[in-house]
């Protein structure tokens, strides 16, 4: 057992890795939400009892989404290398890891969003239908607005899930905290790396949870006091 790495070096390495992790998580969450939310809306609209019921289309879409969700992330990471090369011209580094992270999270976000939208009570939606509102308007000012607190929480859940998956980004040279913990902490038995990355990961997860809770409460008008 060699002597422990000086804290200053550990600190620098952890800082760099934190930056990589945040970059991967933030960008992949954004992309996953932007592409996954429409999938969720579509799933909900085409569902039996939805605004535009299309049972067959709904089944097919649901099947594809669930297939995507059941795919192990490591497999996705490898399978998507050619897509990553096509999009970015490279298959290594944090940016390259964002492609499989985002793609893997799209079906996850889709189901989350669908479940959240399904919670909006049918009589509320029908009330909007009877006002002669268009489907686009109902999606925007009823479905999305009414469930906005839950949607914000869904973004938080997605970000934390992606924080976990980003640990595997090391496979494609993505770096990040998880990678650092595995390479330096686990494989080289360096406890300082192991524990400091664990602490930072816990802080990030808590911060995401805290922030999304606050934002969710902020957009939730339901109990706002006013007279």
């Amino acid at each position, binding site marked *: 057992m060699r002597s422990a790495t000086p804290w200053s070096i550990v600190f620098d390495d952890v800082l760099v890795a934190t930056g990589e992790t945040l970059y991967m998580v933030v960008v992949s969450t954004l992309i996953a939400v932007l592409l996954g939310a429409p999938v969720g809306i579509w799933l909900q609209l085409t569902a039996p009892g939805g605004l535009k019921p299309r049972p067959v289309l709904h089944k097919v879409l649901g099947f594809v989404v669930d297939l995507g969700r059941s795919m192990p992330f490591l497999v996705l990471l490898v399978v998507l290398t050619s897509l990553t090369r096509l999009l970015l011209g490279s298959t290594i580094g944090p940016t390259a890891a964002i492609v499989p992270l985002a793609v893997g999270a799209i079906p996850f976000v889709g189901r989350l969003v669908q479940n959240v939208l399904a919670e909006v009570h049918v*009589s509320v939606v029908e009330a909007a239908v*009877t*006002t002669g*509102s268009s489907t686009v308007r109902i999606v925007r000012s009823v479905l999305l607005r009414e469930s906005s607190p839950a949607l914000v929480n869904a973004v938080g859940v997605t970000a934390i899930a992606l924080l976990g998956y980003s640990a595997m980004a090391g496979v494609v040279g993505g770096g990040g905290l998880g990678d650092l913990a595995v390479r330096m902490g686990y494989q080289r038995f360096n406890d300082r790396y192991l524990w400091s990355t664990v602490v930072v990961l816990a802080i990030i997860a808590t911060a995401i949870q805290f922030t999304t809770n606050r934002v969710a409460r902020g957009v939730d008008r*339901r109990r706002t006091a*006013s007279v």
Partner: protein
Amino acid sequence: MITVENLTKTFPGSTGQVRALDGVNLDVAAGTVLGVVGPSGAGKSTLARCVALLERPDSGAIRVDGTDLVSLDGTALRAARRQIGVVPQGDSLLRQRTAAGNVALPLEAAGVAGPQRRTRVAELLDLVGLTDKAGSYPDQLSGGQRQRIAVARALAASPSVLLADEPTSALDPDTTGSVLAVLDRARAELGVTVLVVTHDMGVVRKICDDVAVLEDGRVVEHGKVLDLVSDAASRTAASLLPGVDQNPALEGSFDRVADVVLIGFAAVGALLPEATSRFGVELNLLGGGLTRLGETPVARFRVGLKGERADSALEWISEAGGSVRRTLSGPQGVAA
């Protein structure tokens, strides 16, 4: 004015098709209130949902001011929906919007500009008596207040028809009164034609001009409430008028026994005493009582008569506007 013609709607059920509506015909004159009543599963909500253009009937027509709305699609369907204000069954307010924001929803859909929208919203909040709650969220309102906001929202885009499915079913009697008052006001002040689905005959008693009784998807009784109650055999009379207990022992001691329905102040107040003095008969009230349908006092009494001219007295009462039905328990004459 709403006309429903030969409306049929079936649903696939576990044991074959369920005929929720089976050739329903109805009409509601402009500016009147029709109550649709009937046992659970009769098809009341299905009828309401068809008229609200939320459900497409298998066949038949729904006309509002003459135009059939059943076959419309797309933009035309959305425009037609604006002619019909709907208070859906259950809690239907957007919980993330204030009371005023909820009332504004149909105006946004109709593309009404901001300033006019605010004016209209204020008018409607005033109509339902909730101006001071404009900025409150649904969770801060009572059940009755929420329902009144739902009525205001339904009326916002100035529809010619207002449809309400069980608007008072979750409310206590006091709050029910406030919601019914708002429906009545909509008819009186805006001239809206109202169709209200209810299982509560109290709603019919308080605000309905007409009533339709639905059973197994068919209309088994339809007409003006005041006409139907004077027919003692009607379901409407049975459920709206004070009941009379059978008392054969007591009734046996009279020459004639009859059920009399009297409608209006004059009839209720004066007809029976006048019959007594005119024909020199002895008239006893054996049962029944007084009630009120809308503004009109209505009485149903079981009366026992003694005296030679008892038949003439009963005949006179029926000619003077009372509705007389001789009962089977007294010594019978021919039915009047």
